[in-house]
């Protein structure tokens, strides 16, 4: 499956997927944000593509910019396909921007704000709202509220705010990968009432953590046994 990063004149940016020979045709072929990040690392775009479109990929993942070899291997392990063709691949990984804070992920939260105390560890928020209801984005020093069509990539139709399961959170993790550098964050915090599918330790699958770690992002599940 071919992926391209697109910045549109109507205010949207995102990943557009084009199926290739044995790939399934995705229900929606583009993951949009109503914002245009200043900078997005190609590796994080690749990880976002794998999170949003991985279930349709059979042939391989082919990007418009080189992906580092470590991320390519992590994608193969995450999708459970060791022979997946990923290209182009570079052995020189571009450095990730330093991010020291936590990024709390929210979905359709009516009000998200982080009260960062003077000496406390800096925490930002990313509130992903539905782009069929809202248009545009609202950026502040403590976080970003952005409209996106990520809700269409959820496996389950939710009855309320925030994904109930980790599987449901994957499209929002994809948006977090895209926005993390813009929000100077390196640790993603997800609140889920159910963290299925679980590994043996009752935690997020190791392959998911590894996928994010390959792009210098950590994953914390609030309510789970332990973090990264």
């Amino acid at each position, binding site marked *: 499956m071919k992926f391209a990063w697109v910045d549109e*004149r109507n205010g949207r940016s995102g990943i557009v997927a084009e199926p290739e020979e044995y790939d399934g045709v995705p229900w929606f072929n583009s993951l*949009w944000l109503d914002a245009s990040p200043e900078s997005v690392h190609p590796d994080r775009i690749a990880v976002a593509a794998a999170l949003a479109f991985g279930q349709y990929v059979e042939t391989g993942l082919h990007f418009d910019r080189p992906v580092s070899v470590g991320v390519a291997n992590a994608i193969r392990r995450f999708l459970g396909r060791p022979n997946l063709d990923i290209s182009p691949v570079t052995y020189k990984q571009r450095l990730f921007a330093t991010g020291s804070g936590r990024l709390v992920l929210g979905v359709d939260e009516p009000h998200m704000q982080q009260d960062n105390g003077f000496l406390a560890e800096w925490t930002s928020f990313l509130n992903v709202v539905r782009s069929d209801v809202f*248009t545009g984005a609202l950026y502040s020093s403590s976080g970003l509220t952005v409209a996106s069509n990520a809700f*269409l990539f959820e496996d389950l*139709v939710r009855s309320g705010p925030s994904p109930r399961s980790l599987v449901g959170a994957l499209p929002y993790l994809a948006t977090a990968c895209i926005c993390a550098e813009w929000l100077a964050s390196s640790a993603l915090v997800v609140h889920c009432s159910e963290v299925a599918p679980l590994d043996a330790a009752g935690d997020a699958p190791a392959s998911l953590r590894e996928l994010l770690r390959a792009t210098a992002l950590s994953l914390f599940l609030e309510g789970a046994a332990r973090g990264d």
Partner: protein
Amino acid sequence: MREEVDLSVVIGFRDWGTDRLTVALNSIRDAADGLNLEIVVSDYGSVDLESNRELLGSLPGVKYVGTECDGPWSRSRALNLGLANASGKVLVCTDADMIFTPGTFRRVFEVVASERNATVLIECRDLPVGWDHNAIRARGADWIEFDQVSTLRGRWGMGGMVAFSRATYVRTRGLDERMHTYGCEDIDFGERTQQAGNRIVWMDDPEVRMYHMWHPGSHDEASRTPEVRAAIEHNRAILYNDRSIARNLVNWGGRPVDAAPLVSVVIATRNRREFLADAIASVLAQTMSDFEIVVVDDGSREPYAQAIAEGFSDSRIRVHSLDHVGIAAARNEGTRLARGRYIAVLDDDDIMLPWRLERQVAAIHAGVHGSYGAYVNYDPVTGALTRFNEKNVSIASAYQSGGAPGHSTWMIERSLMLRIPYDEAIRTGEDNNLFLRMLRVGARFAHCAEFVAVRRTHAHQITKNDSRLHEAFATRNRYYLRFAAHRDARSEIESVGRAAEWVSPRGNDGIEELVGPYLPASENRMILRVAGLPTPELNALLSPELVACRVEPMFAESFALLFGATLSTLALIRSKHRHAEVEVVSAMEAHSAQPVPTLVALQHIDRVLDVHGPRPRILIAVEEVTIPFEDMVAQLAKSRRVWQADNIVTGGSSDTGGTGVIVEVESLRDGLAVIRDLRKAVPGTSYVFAQEARADDSLVNALSQGARS
């Protein structure tokens, strides 16, 4: 309690040797490795179905499905008939000459069951010449030897074995039953599962093997007879030209008994009793019968919807009543209650044209979430028809026009409408709002290139009554769409939208002819051509007030001439006899209320008959003398020139009291002789040569002038 079946393996079959089939069946059983397996042998057209049923149906784990077939064999139809009777969670199609290594189907099942969107294939390996089922039975299953001597066919085609989920089968509606014999039906099906979201997974496991048993004709070019080559060309044309995902829209031989309808037509109604019956009738008149109608009564002062629905006596209609919650909420409730894959919207004061559902489903291809069409405004007072065409809708076109396609032309995936419902806070323009929201999130829609709806203009239209409020909401919807774009970008995108081309629907230059017969007060005369319904049953169904002339069939078709009420007549026939093929084929020029003479009726019928051979045709009728149709045929048979049953194309008695027949003759001179012979026995016989007569024109004129008296 009956155990659930894990895997159903379906094999199409027709007189190809039960011995070889038995070897294949044994291999399949061994390959299931503990799964709860069902094998369905779909015998499509074997000479002795009963013997096959006795033999194969008695084998363990085998379900035998026998169907008569008097035409060319169709692998698509054979497999679909088997799939309709399969109960496994995972379905497999394979052929009667394939054998599998032990455990193969266990592995295949695990892939399909664990990954919801996978279509699984196995590369076929051909065993050498002479390694037929007898040789295999004699040697025993030496899989290592088979692997060494076989030839890998490679990843070509998809037919040797294909495995998929039940949901995939229903989504695609199986193999395309227009394809006959074999060739391309497997590739077409596999590609459509991809378009439906499935990955194509070629099993890459050394323990998974499929071998094709040699038999005479396996790779013999001589077996590709002209008929088979023609069938492959026919099938190939469908493969290359038809982009739709769902097939078998009008007739689906492989429809599972418990399958949900393909389309749910949702009609919200409130205090508009006078229009609802016409709206429902227009749905029942559809060429495609796989639908349900969900009527939501939004708190009408006096409930009428249930009584109107019951008057149609059709189990596909459901009525649900709400306290007055508003039209948006009523439509959302209709979506929630619906069971179909697609929601077709119909306003309660509008009419669907008979081809709407079929053409709209056929327009939905990969990456598209719904379809729409053009519509016609109809003023019942003046009779005026106004066309409303559409462009190919996109964000750019919406930037420029701000508008959505006509609401009564929408057909949208139910799953999308559940995720993005109508905004229940909006009192007007909720359709425009919804469509623009869908466009903005990336939904795509295809124009079906047809007029699909007739929109009645009247005093109680909501858009007429609240036009200022409607405009205000429409403006806000447009602002929502364009909000995030810079001003310069808006102009740029608008100009792209302005440059988009208008789609010209079928019948654009002849809207009255296209739409006229289906208008509620139409007095147009139409010819209905009906196949698959015995004439006495058709006669019993049709009201005498509607039918100007009925001509009884010689062969499998009946004709009826209708005076108005085409839509309600279609609704009646298609609702009660869903397998009858009904075609509206012609409008007659005369709009008079006078009875139609038999000869005039035959002229019109002759124009619509498909078969036009090289021989001239005569339309012969007797109007003033009552003669039973059988007697006329007997008289004709006495003529030396009309001695074969094939000479008589069709005919019968009409309600006007006349009797008519269409006859083919060898030449116009022969035709004249036939008339002269008939007139001796039946005075008052009149005739006309059919317009397709192939002869010297001067001879036609001379004979016509000389013979008429």
